[in-house]
């Protein structure tokens, strides 16, 4: 009966109930939208740190992560690959990395040169799939092939098939250079990444820097990303005596983790502010509700209805309105987000800051269903808080005065 009364009371002033439900729905939309968006950015953060380079776990000489010089290297990459091949569901790719310069006939610029094994690299990073012109590096192809980002090609004003000169300091601190022909151009999704990263064959990079068989890093990609920590520990334990350590992507990017937390935090604050605004609307409406019904509340109190019953009734009314609003909000969210979830939202116009983290400027909002639960949790708390004052007020009415109030 309590529910019946509450339900019918909600139907009494349909327009007001609809407006209230709309306010709650809008709050829900804002909450789900902002968390989905922040989760999307978070996923791009991870993708930037994992998919484009570095993988879930990166193996390198001890200290490489904080000070990546060419002197810190893995002298015997085969021993690392052997350790990884014993792990289940893991792929590994050796890589030589060095800062350098790229020169075309017209322009030059600072870059990072990656020497990779084309086949192995394709298993640990997504770059081979992101080639938009020409093709990915070919193991059996000419030694001087280079794959560059679209941003760099644009900057150097070069195109497919044209030559650029790559320069870097070798182990003896001598400038080493070579001419390379562009055989592929990629677009990773991150404009800043595309401007600085070029890919040549592993052997070619080793020759350029005088590395012999050594490499800078071995990138490990896992089918189960959650295994990153144990895998890193295991690899480190196996290779520590060779001066080698393995770090998870989170350990390599402490700033990323902080940035992600900051984004999450701001999303939650925004949502709370919104819900607080909705909450005050609820307080106001329910104060109106009880003053409109003061006479009938008086009749109920006179008959001996417990104040707690009246409080529960009002709470239930607010909860009904809010749950309806919440459902509307979820439907709205799914409707609004569906397009962007499929096609991504292009933030390149105002997302230079994201690019700095190696994050793609196209964000795909991510609907985490647990956030729907959290949204409903917040709604319930908000309803409880905002109905508290009107309900207490209503249950304190003196029956006589309330009845006389018509």
């Amino acid at each position, binding site marked *: 009966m309590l529910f*019946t*009364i509450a339900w019918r009371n909600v139907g*009494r002033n349909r327009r007001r109930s609809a407006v209230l439900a709309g306010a709650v729905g809008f709050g829900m939309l804002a909450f789900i939208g902002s968390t989905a968006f922040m989760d999307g950015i978070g996923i791009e953060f991870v993708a930037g740190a994992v998919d484009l380079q570095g993988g879930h776990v990166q193996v390198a000489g001890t200290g490489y992560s904080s000070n990546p010089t060419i002197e810190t290297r893995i002298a015997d990459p085969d021993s690392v690959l052997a350790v990884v091949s014993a792990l289940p569901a893991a792929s590994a790719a050796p890589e030589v990395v060095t800062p350098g310069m790229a020169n075309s006939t017209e322009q030059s610029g600072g870059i990072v040169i990656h020497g990779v094994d084309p086949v192995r690299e394709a298993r640990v990073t997504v770059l081979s799939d992101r080639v938009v012109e020409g093709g990915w590096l070919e193991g059996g192809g000419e030694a001087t092939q280079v794959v560059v980002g679209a941003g760099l090609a644009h900057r150097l004003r070069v195109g497919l098939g044209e030559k650029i000169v790559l320069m870097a300091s070798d182990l003896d601190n001598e400038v080493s250079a070579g001419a390379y022909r562009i055989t592929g151009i990629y677009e990773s999704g991150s404009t800043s990444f595309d401007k600085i990263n070029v890919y040549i064959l592993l052997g070619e990079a080793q020759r350029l820097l005088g590395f012999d068989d050594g490499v800078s890093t071995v990138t490990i990609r896992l089918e189960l990303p959650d295994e990153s920590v144990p895998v890193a520990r295991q690899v480190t334990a196996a290779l520590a005596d060779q001066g080698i350590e393995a770090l998870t992507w989170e350990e390599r990017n402490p700033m990323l983790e902080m940035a992600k937390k900051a984004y999450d935090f701001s999303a939650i604050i925004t949502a709370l502010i919104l819900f607080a605004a909705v909450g005050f609307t609820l307080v106001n409406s329910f104060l109106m509700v009880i003053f409109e019904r003061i006479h*009938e509340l008086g009749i109920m109190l*006179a*008959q*001996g209805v*417990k104040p707690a019953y009246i409080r529960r009734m009002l709470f239930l009314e607010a909860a009904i309105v809010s749950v309806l609003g919440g459902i509307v909000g979820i439907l709205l969210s799914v409707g609004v987000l569906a397009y962007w979830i499929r096609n991504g939202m292009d933030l390149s116009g105002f997302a230079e800051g994201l690019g700095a983290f190696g994050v793609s400027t196209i964000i795909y909002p991510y609907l985490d269903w647990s956030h729907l639960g959290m949204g409903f949790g917040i709604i319930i708390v908000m309803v409880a808080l905002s109905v508290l004052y009107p309900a207490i007020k209503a249950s304190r009415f003196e*029956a*006589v005065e309330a009845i006389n109030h018509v």
Partner: protein
Amino acid sequence: MSDPGANGALIRARGLTRVYEDRTSVPVRALAGVDLDIRSGEFTAVAGPSGSGKTTLLNVISGLDRPTEGSVAIDGRDISELSRAALADFRLHNVGFVFQAFNLIPVLSAAENAEFTLLMQGVPAPERHRRTREMLVQLGVGPEMHDRRPSELSGGQQQRVAVARALVSNPRLVLADEPTANLDSTTGSRLLDTMREMNERTGITFLFSTHDPMVMERARRLISLRDGAIDSDEHRA
């Protein structure tokens, strides 16, 4: 229901005084030392001109209001000692109310309104429905009206539903403050006839206020108030 108060007084009021103090105006002495005994099973009207203190008297007796001085005992139990919550509970189990108008919860049907007290008392649904429907029919509210909302009932029908609600839980006492004031004379008289019939059939004590002579006529005891004091008190056949 057993009736221990049959020989003693069901209501025993002594020295009831109620002064309304308002910061903005002079204090009003609405009741000035009323002594009143009402026996179980009585059918009593409180009459008197407007402002004579009828409503105040009923409110103080039911525990809705507290006297400034004096005491009310119901079944020998002094209700002025009860806490607010205990008073509410006392009313729930012992007192049925009928007010002047707008007695009913607008969102509930006639039958739902009538069973509301039983619901609050925790009476199981099947028994609740049965007793309520029987009571409504006895009061002349036919089954075709049971599912109507108050706004779809006439004033007289609404008051009958309110009386049904007051009676269905078998209270010790039904208090009705001008139950007929919003009804035309004929309808009011018919409501009173029904109330008296119920009083005779169930022995439930009725105390109601009125200034309608047609209603006074039907009372078996008529108490007249003037300026907050009892002016006359006559028993009739």
